[in-house]
Each structure stands twice: as structure tokens, then as C-alpha cells.
């Protein structure tokens, strides 16, 4: 079952967050931007973990909500100058949540393999909406005005030099808030009920849980969080394109989850950093990054079954296992 890091784990994660926050003290802008990318993808993968690791739903259409969140900035641009982030972020969340609610309401009428196919197909439909209709601003993407830091006419103008640092810290803050929120959610009975659905959906229904609405709630919330991630992507890059909604991004988020560890809430964060790091290294060695990505996946699915969060030192693994249940009666 999915676990949340305990006291030591949380301490280690906090230390890692501080290390990321300290990057601007010594790293060049390139690495700050790379870290920002990893942070945004970590939000995205974390939002998908709510479906995969918590509720037990494997969706291949999650990138659509990421893209809708990013395009929210572009759509707001139609109303004039750069919107305040205090407006664009809630708008992104709302749009992504609405899209996820509509897709989820239909897709959750199916299960398993068919759920995968339906989410993928509806994700592709949203891809076409931004790819082919005037709504999206073109198949090749469009530059967007970065949401501003303004409130009641006061604006904090960020200089070009400061921007990588500011975006890094902002993205870090959003990721930490998202992680903390999900950790809290898992402690509520809503979170426990979702975990119960993953363990045994049929039993949850017969115990009196209307699992359809619980799953739809999780799907909508996960979509809204993906919208947050997409918004932060658009704000960091100042560019959005239909490719953000493409289904290979959903598959890559699943890869981050598996890479980091399916069994831990923080797994996708580790996975996202590993994914971005490996991608960067591969990009420096070869132009054929997809080859590297494909081979890495093969290694993970064939060998590294519990992800990075599941790696244990050999000495720890030899600790005595909990005593097995006494063999009393045979059926």
C-alpha cells in the first residue's frame, strides 16, 4: 500500500528541498531552469500518483489536464495584458478540474484496460482541440505573456536575471505545498477510502461506498493538480504548445512514478528528478534520447520493480521479516 514518508523520510525530503532552494547561490541559470523543469514535472507526476498509487487508476490521458492548465494562461491572454498569477492559477485549476470532471465522468464507466483506452482517447480529443481549432493558437504552439506578480495594482517586477531564481523558488514552494496537501489528504478518511478502493473496489462498494463518485472526486482533484503543474510550466517557459497534451507525456509521468516508486507518495518526485537528470545526461551524450529513454524503461520494468524509493541497502534487507501468520486452519 502507498505510504507517506515518516519522520526521517520527511526530514530527508526537507533537506533535499533546502538543497534545491540553495541552488541559486552557486549554480548557473541553465541548471536553475533544469531544476525548475524537474520541479514542474514532479508536480505533474505527483498529481498522477493520486490516481495510480492511491486510487489504483492508471490513466493515459493525464497530460491533457496538464496542457489545459498551461493553455489557461494563453486563453486569459485574450482579455488583454498579462494576468496576475493570483488570477491565472485559479483559472488554470478550474479549467483543468472541469475538463477532468467531464472526462472522468465518462471514462469511469469503464474499468482497467478500457479505462486506459478511454482516457487516452479523450486526452487525444483535447489535444486536437488545441491543435486544430482557433482556441489553441496554432499547431506549433504560441508564446504567452507570463502571469505577473501583482495584487490590487501593486506589481513586483522580476528582472530577467532574477527570473530563473524566482521561478525555481516559486515552483519549489508550489511542489512542497502540493506534497504536504496530498500527505494530509491521505490521512483523512477520504484518502483512506481511496486507498481502500485500490485495495479492493468491490468490497468498498459492498461496505457502502459509492466508489464511482469517490473515484470521480479523485480524478477531478488529480486533474486540477495537473492543471497547477501545467500552469507553472506555462509560467516558467512563457510558451505553450499542443504537444503538452500529447499522450506520450502521460506515459512519461507514469514512468516517473514507476521510476521513483509506486509505493511511496514522494516516489514521483524522485522519479521526476531522475527522469530530467537522465534526460539531460543522455542529451549531452547522444541525440537519440528516445533510445536511452526506451532502454531505461526496459531496465525499470524488467528489473527495478520498486523504484528509487524502494532501493534498500543490502544489509537492511536482511533484517528479520515480521513473523508470518500462524498456520491455523486450512480452508
Amino acid at each position, binding site marked *: 500500500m502507498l505510504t507517506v514518508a515518516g519522520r526521517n523520510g520527511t526530514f530527508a525530503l526537507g533537506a533535499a528541498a533546502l538543497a534545491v532552494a540553495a541552488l541559486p547561490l552557486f549554480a548557473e541559470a541553465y541548471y536553475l531552469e533544469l531544476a525548475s523543469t524537474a520541479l514542474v514535472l514532479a508536480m505533474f507526476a505527483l498529481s498522477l500518483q493520486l490516481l495510480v498509487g492511491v486510487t489504483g487508476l492508471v490513466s493515459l490521458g493525464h497530460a491533457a489536464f496538464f496542457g489545459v492548465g498551461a493553455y489557461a494562461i494563453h486563453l486569459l491572454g485574450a482579455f488583454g495584458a498579462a494576468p496576475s498569477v493570483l488570477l491565472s492559477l485559479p483559472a488554470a485549476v478550474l479549467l483543468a478540474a472541469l475538463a477532468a470532471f467531464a472526462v472522468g465522468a465518462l471514462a469511469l464507466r469503464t474499468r482497467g484496460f478500457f479505462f486506459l483506452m478511454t482516457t487516452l*482517447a479523450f486526452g487525444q*480529443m483535447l489535444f486536437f482541440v488545441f491543435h*486544430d481549432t482557433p482556441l489553441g493558437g496554432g499547431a506549433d504552439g504560441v508564446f504567452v505573456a507570463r502571469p505577473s506578480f501583482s495584487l490590487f495594482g501593486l506589481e513586483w517586477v522580476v528582472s530577467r536575471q532574477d527570473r530563473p531564481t524566482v521561478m525555481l523558488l516559486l515552483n519549489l514552494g508550489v511542489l512542497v505545498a502540493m506534497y504536504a496537501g496530498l500527505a494530509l489528504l491521505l490521512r483523512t478518511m477520504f484518502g483512506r477510502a481511496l486507498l481502500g478502493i485500490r485495495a479492493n473496489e468491490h468490497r468498498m462498494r459492498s461496505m457502502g461506498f459509492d466508489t464511482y463518485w469517490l473515484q470521480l472526486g479523485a480524478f477531478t482533484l488529480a486533474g486540477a493538480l495537473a492543471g497547477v503543474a501545467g500552469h507553472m510550466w506555462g509560467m516558467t517557459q512563457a510558451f505553450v504548445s499542443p504537444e503538452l497534451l500529447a499522450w506520450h507525456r502521460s506515459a512519461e509521468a507514469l514512468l516517473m512514478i514507476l521510476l521513483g516508486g509506486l509505493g511511496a507518495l514522494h516516489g514521483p518526485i524522485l522519479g521526476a528528478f531522475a527522469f530530467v537528470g537522465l534526460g539531460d545526461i543522455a542529451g549531452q551524450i547522444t541525440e537519440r534520447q528516445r533510445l536511452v529513454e526506451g*532502454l531505461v524503461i*526496459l531496465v525499470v520494468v524488467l528489473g527495478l520493480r520498486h523504484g528509487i524509493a524502494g532501493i534498500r541497502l543490502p544489509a537492511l534487507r536482511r533484517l528479520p521479516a515480521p513473523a508470518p501468520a500462524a498456520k491455523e486452519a486450512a480452508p
Partner: protein
Amino acid sequence: MSGLAAQLLNGVQYGLLLFLISSGLTLIFGVMGVINLAHGSLFMIGAYIAFVVAGGTGSLWLALPAAVLGGLALGALLERGLFRRFYHREHLDQVLLTFALILLFEEGRSILLGNDFHSVPVPAVLDVAVPMVGDFSYSAYRLAVLVACLGIAGAMFLAIERTRIGSAIRAAAEKPEMVDLLGLDARRIHLVVFAVGTALAMLAGALAAPLHSVYPNMGHGFLIICFVVVVVGGVGSIAGAFWGALLIGVVDTLSKAYLPFAAGLAVYVLMAAVLLWRPTGLFARS
């Protein structure tokens, strides 16, 4: 009027092509419970085989058996080497395994043949218009593809209804636990289903090459449309895939011809309607 007739025929021909791809997809899922996202890449490989063989020998006729034989071999290899280990794994693992295969197939294609668009010429014999009714005439090659696909579909129904291995496959697709009960050789059934499914997808690619031309990632669009076919048609049945494919083929073609503003969206709206009305698919036995 002849315009509509041509679009209808186009839709039927496109739908039959979709049937070749989605029948393998649905059988592989029905029998082995495995999701093969790389099924669209197999279609792409078939199209590239047509491009290479037809370009090298000047004849598409050689490309068709090459695609079928290559498909049987590649399917058997994939089944024995990889998929066999994944039948009982979680969906997440299956998704990522087959996603990795997509990346590797596409990268292999890029290394061997580059990233350009290519057209594949229609065989000279069939590069004519066949007069139909009145002043309406229709491409001989499209007609040939239509007839060939119908023939293959007929052969598949016969094989499934009339042969031992066929009835074993049907039993396995409807109730996987039947395989053990009937004492059937599950390993052999899996191998046959996977190899045949792969060969059908690659044959579809080779047949489609002159119509859709040949380009990187061409399998993605077909894969997703085939998912729509399977969802609309219904769970794990060849007949469901057949009628679903025809319906989607016709709707997609007609909407692109007559409702350009809804272009790519019509089939998804149809899928949404089916999910609301009959979430198990239009042609599934309830």
C-alpha cells in the same frame, strides 16, 4: 451524389483497415490480458516494409507477403522474448513496457530510414479508376484493399469458427480460465494469437502505405482510433471489432469530408455517447 458514394466507400475501406489493426489488439487483450500500445508501431513497421520492398523491387506485391511473414516472426519473437513475462503484471508495467517498445521501434526506424515523409506508388495494374454506376468511378487500389480486407475478415471468422485452434482462441478470449479446464496448450495459443495479431497490423500498414504515405509516428493516430474502435465495438470480440471499425471508419471519413470544423472530434463524441448509453460497447454480448 457520387461524392457521397465515394466518401462512403472510403469510409468502409478505412474501417476495414482499422479492423485489421483492432482485431489483433482486442484478441491479444482478450486472450492474454495484455495492453499493447506498440500495436500502432507494428502498423508503422508494416508501412515502412512496403516502402522499402516496393522501393527496392518496384513491386508492392512482394511487400505484402514480406509484411505478413515479418509480422509473424516479429510477433513470435516479442511474445517469447518479452510479453510472456508480462501477462500477469499490472497494467502500469504493461503500459510502460509497450511505451518503451514504441520509443525503440521509432528510434530504430529513424536510425535505419531517417525521418522523412515518403510516398509509396500504387501498383501500376491498380492505378486506374474503375467505373461504377453512371459517371461515378472509384480507385481500383482502394477497391482492391477493400476486397482484400473483407477476404481476410472472412478468413478470420472461418478460422475462429471452424478450426480447433480457432475455437480454442475464442474460448480463451471469452473465459481465460477455460484454457486450463479444457487442457489446451496455453503457450501455443498465446504464441499464435500474438504472431497473427502482429502480422495483421503489419499487413494493414503495408496495404495503407500507398494511401496514407509513410511517415514517422504514423502509428500513433491509428492506435488511438483503434482504441476508440474497441471501446465502441465492445469487449474482446472479433465481431465487435468488425462492426465498431466499420462504424468509426465511416463516421470519421464522412465527418472529415462534410463537417470540417468538427474534423477530428466526431469519433470522440461518438465514443462519449456510447459510453453514456452502453459502457460495455455497442456490439458486446450483454
